[in-house]
């Protein structure tokens, strides 16, 4: 232990609580919670974070967008961790809830829906989900605090998100869906939508009628054998358009 360190104060611990909460919100929740063991003063500091960010993926997406599913024996600990974080989160208005899971264990798969529902009940504003299953709690699609929603499947073997018929997201400005089976369900349900990114398998014709839309990214992956489906865009305020894929 060098002698110089004895004269240096622990200024980090002396920062005001709201600044520490801001700092801890800027990292994955795993690392924020790690600070609970630094000293007694730090034990509950992490509970005031504004962002909840859980990442339980093993491999990054390759160019072919395949993530290997895995089961590694830590599932029970992960479930306990997320349950506890949601239970002790002192913020009733969470800014960001991110859940990226590519673990395939059945216990995790059955918890994901509950976790997302908890986030909605915490008045979440930004939701970023990348999981293995297709079922989402319906509360996500009627959440009136949501301003940004991102849905992706972490194992793109097949299929895509099937959006429910009753969607109403009054504050949603940004929507990003990777792997959407029924894009026509978006029609009319997001009155202030400004930015839309869709990856669809263009099997059927569909119409996008969004008067407020300014930014659109459309990626069409090849659907069934008859690749000639029609997409109609009614987007009078559009400023930016990006289109890719098989049209």
């Amino acid at each position, binding site marked *: 232990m060098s002698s110089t*360190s004895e004269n*240096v*104060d*622990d*200024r*980090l*611990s002396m*920062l*005001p609580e709201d*600044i520490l909460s*801001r*700092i*801890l919100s*800027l*990292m*994955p929740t*795993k*690392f924020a*919670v*790690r*600070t*609970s*063991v*630094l*000293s*007694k003063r*730090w*034990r509950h500091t992490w509970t005031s974070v504004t962002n909840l960010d859980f990442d339980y993926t093993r491999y990054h997406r390759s160019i072919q967008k395949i993530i290997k599913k895995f089961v590694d024996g*830590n599932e029970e*600990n*992960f479930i*306990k*961790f997320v349950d*506890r974080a949601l239970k002790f989160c002192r913020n009733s208005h969470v800014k960001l809830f991110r859940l990226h899971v590519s673990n395939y264990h059945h216990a995790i798969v059955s918890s994901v829906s509950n976790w997302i529902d908890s986030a909605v009940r915490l008045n979440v504003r930004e939701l970023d989900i990348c999981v293995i299953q297709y079922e989402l709690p319906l509360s996500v699609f009627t959440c009136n605090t949501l301003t940004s929603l991102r849905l992706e499947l972490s194992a793109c073997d097949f299929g895509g998100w099937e959006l429910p018929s009753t969607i109403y997201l009054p504050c949603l400005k940004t929507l990003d869906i990777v792997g959407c089976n029924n894009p026509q369900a978006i029609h009319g349900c997001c009155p202030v939508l400004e930015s839309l990114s869709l990856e669809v398998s263009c099997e059927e014709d569909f119409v996008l009628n969004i008067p407020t839309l300014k930014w659109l990214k459309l990626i069409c992956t090849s659907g069934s054998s008859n690749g000639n489906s029609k997409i109609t865009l009614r987007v009078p305020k559009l400023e930016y358009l990006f289109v890719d894929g098989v049209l």
Partner: protein
Amino acid sequence: MLKNLNSKHIQRFSYKYLPQFPISPNSPKLGFSRSQIANYRSNFPTTIMSSSKTIVLRSSDGETFEVDEAVAVESQTIKHMIEDGCADTSIPLPNVTSKILSKVIEYCKKHVETPNADEKVAEEDLKSFDADFVKVDQSTLFDLILAANYLNIKSLLDLTCQTVADMIKGKTPEEIRKTFNIKNDFTPEEEEEVRRENAWAFE
């Protein structure tokens, strides 16, 4: 901040331009309109109001810095002080030393000068300025955080907090303690319990 205002001015002001609520050091932003302030200026010519072009800031150790108003109002705190008519001769900043204030002014100048262009070059240049700006010792970094917080400069607060966050994430608790000189006051049993509660975080 109202304590530093000459009380004579307040008295004169209150008779002619009384807002609907009492002025107290604890009241929120007074909300005088610009025309009210202009009226005040014309009726009390002896009051020296700073020109709309430059603002004088005074650090805690008495040093003064003259800055363009456009640069000074990057700080929401200073912006409100100017709008409230508290910026006659100079704005005192008792919580900020000259060393830190000069750095903050440097940051605000750069961010005001860089046009809000979508140009890649300007964006890259600003990013690299920001990256170099936070390459300072820990003590200065914490002073910058506290100054950005007090002066309410969101982008600077975000930048400095992210820098500290990057110093924490990915490290083991032992490494974090060493980096920031945090004293571990848990007993081994207490520490074990905390680690067990959130086992997945420590894997």
